[in-house]
């Protein structure tokens, strides 16, 4: 036989050689468990940018956990949404709300070892307020200016009163950045080698793959339990489940509830859930047939929110009647929109509609953007059909939703989820229901008149009471359909203690060994 002939034996040898690396023990080590001293989090979104004050990522609530590990917000936020000292130890207005005063913490340092100064605070606030700076929340930061520094105390003039100013200092774009370093390296340089004053500093970053952080030895707060934190960017939920199940990650979240129930029952894993400041809702647009109050109210009363939560979300949700979830500053448990299909039928009958002669409109929804979003709308359409509403489902992408909403071109009903990490009514009911806001679908003049005076209300108790009254009015008029508050599922290895945050953040600095 010719020596170079392709014999059966040769082929088997070749196949065996090819399979060798797969079967070798060398590869087995790669499915590693977390190394001691290292915490690995399978994270659900990629990190687009290291500048927490500019562009899309600055207003993406999901990314803030990473930012808060690297950068310090001006003001801290406790797990229950209450506010606590951050880099600022004191803050407030003067009596007539014409000046703000802030006091910088002593001893805080940047990751390069240089001290955090009041000039850093002033520079960060001024940069955020610059209309050409690209800060999406610029309209808040621009309401204060003319800062003066005296020791560690900073004062500023209130150019326009903004009651939520200090609340924003704990959230989106409310971060202190290093003036001297940023000016030295520029925006591009900062993207490549960012420094902050938070508990962790950037050690390695592979875009779309992982971010490795090391504990900042000069951090002013409690020393984090883990010296190294790895955020693995695992955007696919199935892959996140596989990550935690294979032992490749220590913590993950935002996984299907069915998988959560399965995983938490496994040995070596533990699960916890907590309602977060994110709600499911249906926008109602002020176009026909929603201009008919009976139709709006019928659409509200026909939905059995508890059944949706129990059957579709396996109980992981809290039904709500207003856009204020429990824990928000203006939450009022006395406002109830009951599930009452008979009432819905009678309301529709007043307008000449019935199951035989239904009112027709389109409802838009995402599919797969939030857990069971499409299935939920299917269930709601089924409930509506029984009382005399014939709704057609139209699926859209979330990007389309934003554009349609900004153009006031949403369908009569449109499913969405609304986050409100600072828990203030202005950032829930306010922006969702105030006509001039680009986020508002219902532009009713009556609601605009009720909300208008609250924007500049300086008496906090009066302001909150005012928002509660607005929420009651909106519920009575059926101008929006609040559905439920989301519950965040977190799966982690046993032996870890994960502190759930009501704003949905997974902060590595708060994760410890149990």
């Amino acid at each position, binding site marked *: 036989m010719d020596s170079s002939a392709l014999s059966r034996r040769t082929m088997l040898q070749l196949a065996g050689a090819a399979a060798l690396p797969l079967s070798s023990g060398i590869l087995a080590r790669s499915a590693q468990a977390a190394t001691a001293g290292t915490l690995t989090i399978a994270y659900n979104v990629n990190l687009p940018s290291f500048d927490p004050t500019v562009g899309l990522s600055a207003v993406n609530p999901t990314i803030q956990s990473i930012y808060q590990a690297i950068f310090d917000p001006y003001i801290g936020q406790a797990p229950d949404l209450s506010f606590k000292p951050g880099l600022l130890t004191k803050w407030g207005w003067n009596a007539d709300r014409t000046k703000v005063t802030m006091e910088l913490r002593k001893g805080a340092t940047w990751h390069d070892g240089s001290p955090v100064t009041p000039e850093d605070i002033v520079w960060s606030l001024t940069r955020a307020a610059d209309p050409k700076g690209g800060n999406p929340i610029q309209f808040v930061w621009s309401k204060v200016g003319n800062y003066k520094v005296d020791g560690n105390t900073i004062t500023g003039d209130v150019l326009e009163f903004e009651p939520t100013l200090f609340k924003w200092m704990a959230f989106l774009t409310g971060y202190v950045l290093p003036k001297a370093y940023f000016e030295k390296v520029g925006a591009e340089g900062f993207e490549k080698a960012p420094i902050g004053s938070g508990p962790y500093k950037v050690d390695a970053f592979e875009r779309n793959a992982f971010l490795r952080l090391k504990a900042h030895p000069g951090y002013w707060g409690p020393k984090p339990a883990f010296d190294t934190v790895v955020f693995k960017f695992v955007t696919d939920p199935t892959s996140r489940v596989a990550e935690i199940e294979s032992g*490749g990650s220590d913590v993950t979240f935002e996984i299907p509830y069915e998988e959560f129930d399965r995983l938490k029952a496994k040995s070596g894993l533990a699960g916890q859930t907590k309602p977060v400041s994110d709600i499911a809702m249906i926008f109602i647009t002020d176009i026909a047939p929603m201009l008919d109050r009976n139709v709006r109210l019928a659409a509200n009363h026909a939905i059995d929110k508890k059944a949706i939560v129990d059957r579709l979300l396996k109980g992981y949700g809290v039904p709500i009647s207003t856009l204020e979830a429990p824990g928000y500053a203006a939450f009022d448990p006395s406002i109830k929109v009951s599930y009452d299909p008979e009432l819905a039928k009678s309301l529709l009958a007043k307008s000449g509609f019935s199951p035989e002669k239904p009112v027709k409109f389109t409802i838009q929804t995402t599919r797969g953007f939030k857990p069971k979003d499409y299935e939920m709308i299917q269930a709601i359409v089924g409930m509506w059909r029984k009382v005399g509403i014939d709704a057609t489902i139209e699926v859209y992408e979330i990007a389309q939703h934003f554009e349609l909403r900004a153009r006031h071109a949403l369908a009569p009903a449109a499913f969405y989820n609304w986050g409100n990490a600072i828990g203030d009514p202005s950032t829930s009911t306010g922006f969702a229901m105030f006509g001039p806001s680009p986020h508002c679908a219902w532009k009713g003049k009556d609601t605009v008149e009720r909300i208008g005076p609250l924007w500049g209300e300086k008496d906090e108790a009066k302001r909150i009471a005012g928002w509660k009254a607005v929420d009651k009015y909106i519920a009575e008029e059926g101008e929006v359909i609040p559905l439920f508050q989301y519950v965040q599922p977190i799966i982690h290895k046993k032996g870890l203690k994960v502190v759930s945050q009501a704003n949905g953040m997974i902060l590595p600095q708060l994760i410890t060994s149990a």
Partner: protein
Amino acid sequence: MRWGEIIRRLVLIPPTLFGVCVIVFVLLRVVPGDPIAMMIPPGASPADIDRLRAFYGLDQSILQQFITWLGQALTGNFGRSISLHQNVFELVLARLPATLELSLLATLIATALGVMVALTGVYVRGRRLEWAIDGGIGVFLAIPDFLWALILLLLFGVLIPLLPISGRIDPQLDVAFRTNFYLVESLLTGRLDVALALLQHMILPAVALALPFAALVARLLKASLAEAEDQDYAQIARARGFSRPAILWREVFPNALIPTVALGGVQVTLLLGGTVLVERIFSYEGIGNMAIDAVINRDFPLIQGLILTFAVLFIALNLAVDLLVRLLDPRLRHG
């Protein structure tokens, strides 16, 4: 392919790319989905929205935007990513090597598997094993790469956790690279431990991409081998006493390879397209994974840069395949 044909193809590249640019540029701005609408915070006024639109240059007409972009692109500046805040060209160049290395590995695996299966299939022609091989090829062709990715992820990530299931390299490794061709660089510099670590991360996504392509290669090559084996020259070789494996390998295989390369080579572009979902599933840091985020965020400059990159790759691959066929087929060289 004659040289004149090659020159004609080269000349057509710039207008083709220009056409791609125009279509992508216009489509992105016409279809629903606006990057500014994505980043409007609660409470932004129409003036705030206009300010952001102007900041990203989206306040101009589509024609003005295109002229500005084209003028910059001709100087190598493809704009700045809206979501990543970095130069698009640098971003794509940094991530492209990861995708190229993955695609190359997948192509090598697919070719090796496809050739082995095809040779075996022809060798056992007429026997029951051939039916089994044909059935297997059909199954592997029917399952798309992203489903293979999920199957492999659950199989080797969860059920038999042998291999890492996310990323390109172990986050715990402290390795410095001079280029973004991590695998090639580590092999060339003799850092075999690093190369092995990289291969561990690449093997599952590469196999997921390779399996449907291997089935395609196997089907095409097997049919060509069977046809070539029935030709006179193969029969004569057999009459002269050569063994069948020797005839298959030496005489039949080189001739059967030409149609397989011509048809299968073009399919490499499909494999490249498959990286988008497979990279996502395995959190692999290539341009496919980046493309999904760019689309979600409606990052116009980045989407334009990525599609242009894919277009260049597809054109280059098609040209390379044609040249390879010319190299393999003496009739084309001397015709």
